[in-house]
């Protein structure tokens, strides 16, 4: 990896992606071999909005590499509340930690922050912008279950505001996947993402009905349609109901369809699907640890074994 910081899935080439995923696979196979790899390393956790899962996943990854974390704590109790700029905060914490993980509610925050520090900085979500480590663990799960060759994937739900979707779409372009986007008209992919996909020559189609495309899919990636995006409850109910899947929905799917979800889910996927071979969303969440271990190891100067 030749990157100093991980800011956006867009910066990752296919070679970068495969390097991280291969390394993650090695780690997953024998995690004990990496247990002292980064003893004495401290990861600075800068979470400007709550995200228990992502934070736990990074914390676990660092500790499994033998290192530890220093945590800024909640924004409420920090100097940020007193009006300190993000640029100042990261320059201060850079002095304590060997690498930084930043979650911030504003778009572009990680890119800006990375311009002020010399230690590696990983974007753990910037507003509606990017969430590249989620993308890497999504790709890991996809590769594990469906492979990258001639992959046909459907991405369904809130495509407008879902940053995980935007990052994933960019990355899938690198592996030449056939991408189908399924959403209500009002939650279609934003213009800037469609612009990029078009520029990159991606094979992309948009649908409003899952039925139109479900039988062709190798992977169905479901995201949550957020209630707060709709002006009134009845409008939300009408739309959300159309994008729920259960055992019956999947009758027409391929036997080896992989169903994914970045979690948390509300009712997009019925619990009865959990017990089928299609359900890979918990595995997907667990994959966050080896993938983040691999990424941190590479950023902190570890060598890929392959």
């Amino acid at each position, binding site marked *: 990896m030749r990157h100093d910081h991980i800011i956006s899935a867009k910066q990752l080439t296919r070679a970068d992606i495969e390097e991280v995923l291969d390394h993650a696979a090695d780690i997953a196979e024998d995690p004990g071999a990496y247990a002292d790899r980064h003893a004495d390393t401290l990861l600075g956790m800068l979470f400007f909005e709550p995200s228990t899962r992502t934070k736990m996943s990074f914390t676990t990854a660092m500790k499994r590499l033998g290192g530890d974390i220093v945590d800024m704590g909640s924004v409420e109790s920090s100097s940020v509340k007193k009006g300190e*700029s*993000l*640029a100042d905060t990261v320059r201060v914490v850079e002095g304590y930690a060997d690498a930084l993980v930043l979650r*911030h*509610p*504003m*778009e*572009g*925050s990680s*890119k*800006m922050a990375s*311009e002020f520090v010399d230690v590696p900085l990983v974007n753990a979500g*910037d*507003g*509606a*912008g990017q969430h590249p480590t989620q993308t890497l663990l999504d790709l890991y799960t996809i590769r594990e279950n469906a492979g990258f060759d001639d992959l046909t994937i459907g991405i369904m739900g809130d495509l407008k505001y879902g940053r995980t979707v935007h990052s994933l779409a960019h990355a899938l372009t690198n592996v030449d996947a056939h991408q189908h986007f399924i959403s209500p008209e009002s939650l279609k992919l934003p*213009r*800037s993402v469609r*612009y990029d996909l078009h520029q990159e020559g991606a094979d992309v189609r948009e649908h409003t009905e899952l039925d139109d495309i479900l039988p062709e899919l190798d992977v169905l990636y479901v995201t949550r349609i957020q209630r707060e995006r709709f002006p009134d409850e009845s409008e939300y109910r009408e739309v959300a109901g159309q994008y729920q899947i259960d055992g019956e929905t999947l009758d027409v799917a391929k036997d080896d369809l992989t169903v994914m979800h970045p979690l948390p889910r509300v009712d997009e996927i019925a619990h009865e699907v959990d017990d089928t071979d299609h359900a890979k969303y918990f595995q997907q969440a667990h994959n966050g640890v080896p993938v983040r271990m691999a990424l941190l190891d590479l950023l902190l100067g570890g060598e890929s074994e392959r």
Partner: protein
Amino acid sequence: MTDDRKLRVSKIRNGTVIDHIAGGQALNVLAILGIDGTSGESVSVAMNMPSDRLGKKDIVKVEGRELSQNEVDVLSLIAPAASINIVRDYEVVEKHRVERPEVVVGVLECPNHNCITTEDEPVESRFAVVDDGVRCEYCDTIIRNDLPAHILAD
């Protein structure tokens, strides 16, 4: 009209003549230069003049002001065919075509209110110039139309 006043319209002593602006864009050019008549500069504008190259063109002459590279960069986005003539003592001393830059820095304000560049942080806005507009390098927001409305106040 006296000869003196005729002269003022047709020639400037020191300043900039922007020629070959697409017909109808002159007021946007003035907006980009931050000229609204209140700062006392002497400005002449000719609109929809016949032009071999453009069909119709606008011309803007600004007395006593040479354009900065930043201004020329943004200008290029709405007037890609423009030529810029720097005049000193009634003579054109420099003449150049505008060129579309790859990035414009610190000139435009990102329209995304949730973009980090709109906060009180020590960072300048940066827009990459794309085929049909500009794009924020921090949050990816694209501006296609209405560029002058996004020019940062000094």
